[in-house]
């Protein structure tokens, strides 16, 4: 692996190595770009992952301090954990199950179906489904989705049998085991799933797609990327003309470093990405970097999220097998006659005993709680994921009263459910309960939203610079050599799990960056090295001596 000099002004600096940053790094190195990939977390091998919910959480989760405000229940139940995302090489792709629906055509044109709603910061995407479809095709092949590219469906596991029979029981027609990013058969140098039931704890046998053992090692094989784990970027630097010159970060030894870059791409998840932009304020960008629209940090979305668990008089053992390999589409279309706009999916879900206890009814106790836990072996579960409304007041801001380990203000996440979110959640809970009751559930349990793994919208795409932060390719309207490469750039959340769309947009963005750099259309900032280098002399270049060894 090469180690680029801190003053190398030809590198692309990418912040974050998850679905967006990891994919972008691979795509850019495949076309010959030099990439410095900065990741705040450690570089774990899948061999280090553990089939243990709390231990794994401590190993992988992003646990740096965050604060919350607003009326959402998470602010009460988990005031310092608004989101359940990862701090590790591979980002949150080490912690996901693999559900990958595409967005629907109308979901790119939200202003048409949000029409007339109060307190919705409606905006159409600057792209349509047709623009992204070719990249969905490529993303699906990359992720190896079941039911695409000749890859079979996953088989029915126990939890799916209850889920799908229930779907039939209430008359749903469009259900299956999912477009799912986990190998049903050995493929792409990775084995088939062993149905171990621990997707959120890291896929030990690598059967589930993660940038950790697909995109990143493939990038490393090109000899072009310089992967720096344990490096937490605290500021994007800009010059007097408003162009990005590089990033300042705290390295694994706790030292502040400045990495020069021709272009900076940020993919830190929709809480850290706006935090970094806001923290990069200068005299020129007094409200935060790339924030002339005032939209940085606004429109934070976290998806509907709710769950239903049901107890039967016979064993289910929902924890066995691929945790989320079940998908119902019937409630996904936009049908305002239900009393809300947008739609939702019902997806299979199971938690182990430790996390079911933590999340089933936070704060709950007594016989009602323990009798549900005693139904664990006979329990089935599903998750409800749907579109929540972009609201300008739901936002990530800097909390200057709380500083992190690097002396930086922590992010505060403010969220109030929109009446549309509440109406959709009520409908979805009822639908999930009816599904299970149709196959004989003795008891159903409504579980409230978890800390969000889908974090969306805080640096949104817009046609016009005054409406959003980035253009149709994720390029900052205000700073042409700055890109946003994660779900922060989503204009709206749609009903679908975001990873497939993050990957598709990253592939598309890489193509755009390559074309634009070749054409000389992206200007480069001018750093004055001696003034900008807080860490002393730049290191010598070392040749590609330590070839990628993460497999």
């Amino acid at each position: 692996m090469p180690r680029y000099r801190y003053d190398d002004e030809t590198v692309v600096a990418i912040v974050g190595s998850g679905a967006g940053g990891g994919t972008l790094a691979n795509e850019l190195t495949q076309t010959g770009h030099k990439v410095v990939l900065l990741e705040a977390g450690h570089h774990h091998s899948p061999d280090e992952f553990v089939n243990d919910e709390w231990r794994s959480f401590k190993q992988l989760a992003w646990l740096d301090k965050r604060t919350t405000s607003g009326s959402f229940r998470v602010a009460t139940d988990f005031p310092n954990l608004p989101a359940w995302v990862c701090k590790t090489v591979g980002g949150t792709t080490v912690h996901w199950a693999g559900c990958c629906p595409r967005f629907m055509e109308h979901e790119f044109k939200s202003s048409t179906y949000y029409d007339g709603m109060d307190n919705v910061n409606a905006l159409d995407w600057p792209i349509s489904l047709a623009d992204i479809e070719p990249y969905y095709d490529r993303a699906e092949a990359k992720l190896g989705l079941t039911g695409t590219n000749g890859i079979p469906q996953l088989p029915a596991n126990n939890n799916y049998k209850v889920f799908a029979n229930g779907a039939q029981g209430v008359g749903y027609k469009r259900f299956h085991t999912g477009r799912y990013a986990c190998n049903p058969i050995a493929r792409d140098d990775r084995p088939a799933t062993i149905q171990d039931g621990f997707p959120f704890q890291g896929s030990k046998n690598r059967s589930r797609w993660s940038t950790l053992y697909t995109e990143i090692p493939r990038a490393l094989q090109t000899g072009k990327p310089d992967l720096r784990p344990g490096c937490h970027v605290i500021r994007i630097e800009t010059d007097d003309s408003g162009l990005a010159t590089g990033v300042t970060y705290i390295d694994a030894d706790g030292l502040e470093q400045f990495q020069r870059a021709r272009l900076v791409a940020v993919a830190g998840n929709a809480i850290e990405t706006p935090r970094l932009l806001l923290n990069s304020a200068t005299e020129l960008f007094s409200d935060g970097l790339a924030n002339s629209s005032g939209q940085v940090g606004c429109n934070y979305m976290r998806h509907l999220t709710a769950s239903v668990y049901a107890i039967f008089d016979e064993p289910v053992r929902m924890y066995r097998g691929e945790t989320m390999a079940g998908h119902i589409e019937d409630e996904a279309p936009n049908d305002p006659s239900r009393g809300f706009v947008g739609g939702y999916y019902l997806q299979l879900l199971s938690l182990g005993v430790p996390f079911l206890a933590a999340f089933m009814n936070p704060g709950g106790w007594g016989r009602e709680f323990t009798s549900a836990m005693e139904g664990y072996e006979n329990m089935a579960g599903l998750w409800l994921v749907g579109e929540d409304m972009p609201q300008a007041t739901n936002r990530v801001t800097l909390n200057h009263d709380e500083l992190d380990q690097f002396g930086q203000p922590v992010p505060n996440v403010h969220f109030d459910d929109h009446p549309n979110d509440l109406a959709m959640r009520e409908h979805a809970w009822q639908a999930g309960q009816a599904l299970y009751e149709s196959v004989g559930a003795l008891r159903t349990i409504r579980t409230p939203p978890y800390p969000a793994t889908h974090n969306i919208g805080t640096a949104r795409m817009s046609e016009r610079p005054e409406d959003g932060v980035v253009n149709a390719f994720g390029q900052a309207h205000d700073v042409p050599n700055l890109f946003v490469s994660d779900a922060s750039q989503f204009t709206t959340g749609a009903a679908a799990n975001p990873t497939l769309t993050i990957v598709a947009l990253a592939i598309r963005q890489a193509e755009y960056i390559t074309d634009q750099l070749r054409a000389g259309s992206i200007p480069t900032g001018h750093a004055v090295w001696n003034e900008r280098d807080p860490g002393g002399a730049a290191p010598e270049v070392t040749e590609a001596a330590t070839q990628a060894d993460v497999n």
Partner: protein
Amino acid sequence: MPELSDHALETTLRVARAMYPHDALPDEAYEKVVRQIEADAHGNKAVQATIEQGIAELDEPTPFKDLEADDQLEALLRTEGGEYFNLVRATAVVELYDNPLVWKALGYEGPSVHLGGYVNRGFDDLDWLPDPPISLDPDAGSHHQNVR
């Protein structure tokens, strides 16, 4: 002087048990909760004071550990939301259920990868419902053009 009295440890176990009652579980399952609270109290005067004050409140007029189950529940409801109540509840919901002994009692098999997962160990052995289709019914159509 130990940081927490035997009475405090014994009462905390009874409180955890009354909050999360599983009749089939031995006291041993709840001892893990007490050990964690002991660790939290170690060298922390504020936590020690929370525990002593919380128990004093629960012991009025009759020691909590001597109460019948219904009266224990009433005492808990009376102190719900207090600092000691919240400490025991938040600790118990993690520690009690993060224990292989409890997993076994509830029918959860825990880590599986070292046993080869469940692919050959019953991931699909549910037999009280018919086997449903796993693929989208082509006649049902889809709003996803990619779904086939």
